[in-house]
């Protein structure tokens, strides 16, 4: 189903993106599919398990070129995760691929018991996450998944913010010894500034699961964001410069384990912290940061931007983001208000 696709940015925000020299890349989903195919060609133990999701997971070419390394279970997410656990127990490197809304809810007990409690290092690949399926309604939104999984022992959670992070996360996940949940959407991603994309080869090793990526320095305010919201925080930081506000931007791609040092440093350096996530405000990145800060005795001005506890408005992801203030303008307004408090 193809829904209308409104522009990601306002004309003003697009101007800011251009001024920063940001380049639109591919969707993280495409990066995932290509990376997985490459990994699977190198190692026959790599198996993709799908629940009628090979199309939505862009795994058509994978299925055609490596039919022996894909296991299709049909529309049966509970079975998807159980089968993935069984395959992993026999030494397979398993990527279980399904839309985030189903993978994290329909099969949550299998994730809890068969993967996490049984310590099977399955890679749960949650595609079309958040409100990627915005127009399809709440059945297809996953705004609960990070909260649900944060409350389960023995699983790491990674939400990459651009193609670089996605490629790195998927590659590292293959060797990861613990269960891991990779979450990404369907939008084309801008390449975010980092040593690696500025031609510094050494920077490529800068990505590590559990290590935040500082995209921009600043000392008045820090945006801590992840996934498809990070670009909006970055534009807001640039926009705020006009008001003489210096904003740091951190891509907190790993929510579990959290890079506590990066958050504490930000709280010591900056007067205010704003977290941004494509998730319910309960139980996600924002609350993880708030909990850390309070327990560390730090109390910067603090705001959580995400989805409120209400029936989520529907439409394209870009429309929904704007509705809830996940935009350059919306985040800029939150920042100005917070700093003036």
């Amino acid at each position: 189903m193809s829904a209308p696709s409104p522009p990601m940015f306002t004309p003003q925000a697009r101007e800011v993106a251009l001024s920063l020299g940001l380049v639109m890349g591919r969707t993280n989903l495409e990066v995932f599919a290509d990376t997985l195919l490459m990994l699977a060609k190198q190692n026959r133990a790599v198996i993709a398990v799908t629940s009628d999701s090979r199309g939505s997971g862009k795994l058509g070419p994978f299925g055609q070129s490596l039919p022996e390394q894909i296991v299709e279970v049909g529309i049966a997410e509970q079975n998807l995760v159980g089968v993935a656990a069984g395959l992993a127990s026999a030494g397979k490197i398993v990527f279980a691929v399904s839309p985030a809304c189903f993978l994290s809810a329909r099969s949550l007990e299998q994730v809890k018991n068969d993967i996490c409690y049984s310590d099977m290092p399955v890679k749960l690949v949650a595609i079309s996450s958040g409100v990627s399926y915005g127009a399809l309604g709440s059945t297809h939104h996953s705004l609960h998944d990070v909260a649900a999984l944060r409350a389960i022992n023995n699983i790491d959670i990674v939400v990459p913010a651009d193609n670089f992070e996605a490629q790195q996360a998927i590659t590292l996940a293959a060797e990861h010894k613990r269960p891991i949940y990779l979450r990404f959407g369907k939008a084309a991603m801008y390449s975010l500034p980092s040593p690696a994309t500025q031609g510094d080869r050494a920077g490529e090793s800068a990505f590590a699961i559990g290590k935040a990526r500082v995209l921009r320095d600043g000392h008045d305010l820090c945006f801590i964001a992840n996934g498809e919201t990070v670009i909006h925080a970055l534009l807001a930081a640039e926009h705020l410069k006009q008001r003489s506000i210096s904003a740091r931007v951190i891509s907190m791609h790993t929510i579990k384990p959290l890079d506590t040092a990066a958050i504490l440093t930000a709280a010591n350096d900056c007067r205010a912290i704003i977290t941004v996530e494509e998730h319910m405000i309960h139980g996600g990145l924002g609350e993880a940061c708030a909990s850390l800060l309070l327990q560390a005795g730090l109390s910067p001005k603090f705001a959580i931007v995400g989805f409120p506890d209400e029936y989520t408005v529907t439409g394209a992801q870009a429309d929904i983001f704007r509705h809830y203030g996940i935009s350059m303008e919306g985040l800029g307004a939150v920042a100005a208000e917070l700093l003036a408090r």
Partner: protein
Amino acid sequence: MSLTDHQLRQKSLQYRKQVLEIIYHAGAGHTGGSLSCIDILNVLYNRVLRVSPENFGSPDRDRYIQSKGHSVEALFVVLADKGFFAFDELKSLCRYGSHFVGHPTRKVPGVEFNTGALGHGLSIGVGSAIAAKKDGRDCRTFVLLGDGELAEGSNWEAAMCAAHYQLDNLTAIIDHNTLQITGRTRDVCANAPLDEKFAAFGWEVMTVDGHSIEQLTSAFQPASPSRQTVRPRVVIANTIKGRGVSFMEDVGKWHHGVPSKEEYVKAMAEIDVTMKAER
């Protein structure tokens, strides 16, 4: 050294006593279901499964996944007998900090998977069996299910998938004791006819007396190379909950009933009489 049918029958009686002993000392456990499936585990571990403490790390070992995890006392007793750990360690069953908890956990040597929430084991078994096929290993996977457990829809997702992948290296065993915690399975959520249901899902179906060493042995033999169709197999093992102790047999309250001192002494004496009679 292979054991005779007679020796296995004696072993089942010994296992029954040990199940009662550990449940009595722990003051907790699933007595009825452990006694209904003990003959199945006996035949599997002593006659069928290529599983031992020595080969447990080998990818070629057979797999046993106990989906009806609450009958863990039966599994622990058999694993102790197979030498995975000393029987005395089971004195810590359900005690603070013990890894002998009320459902299977991989912290216990010999346990393949953490189970206990129902409706999980068959999917895990499907994954294990698919992996064996992909690797060209001849190892087999066995999954023990409860009949009440079959109300969990995930079993039927797995059943469909197993037939789709023609997993003739997978055997599901149903401990068909017809009782669950609330009462008769037919009154709680009727699942009959199980044979026709599994046949319709594309499985080879065998129905046996789940307390007969001979019938269980026969049902667990590998598929004949000359078979016409390649299918997963289900063994519907007709059993009696609480089997072996007259006052526990087919009585729902023994699902997780723990014997009093008098009941324990009486039950042990009764099994001793049976052992002597069969000698």
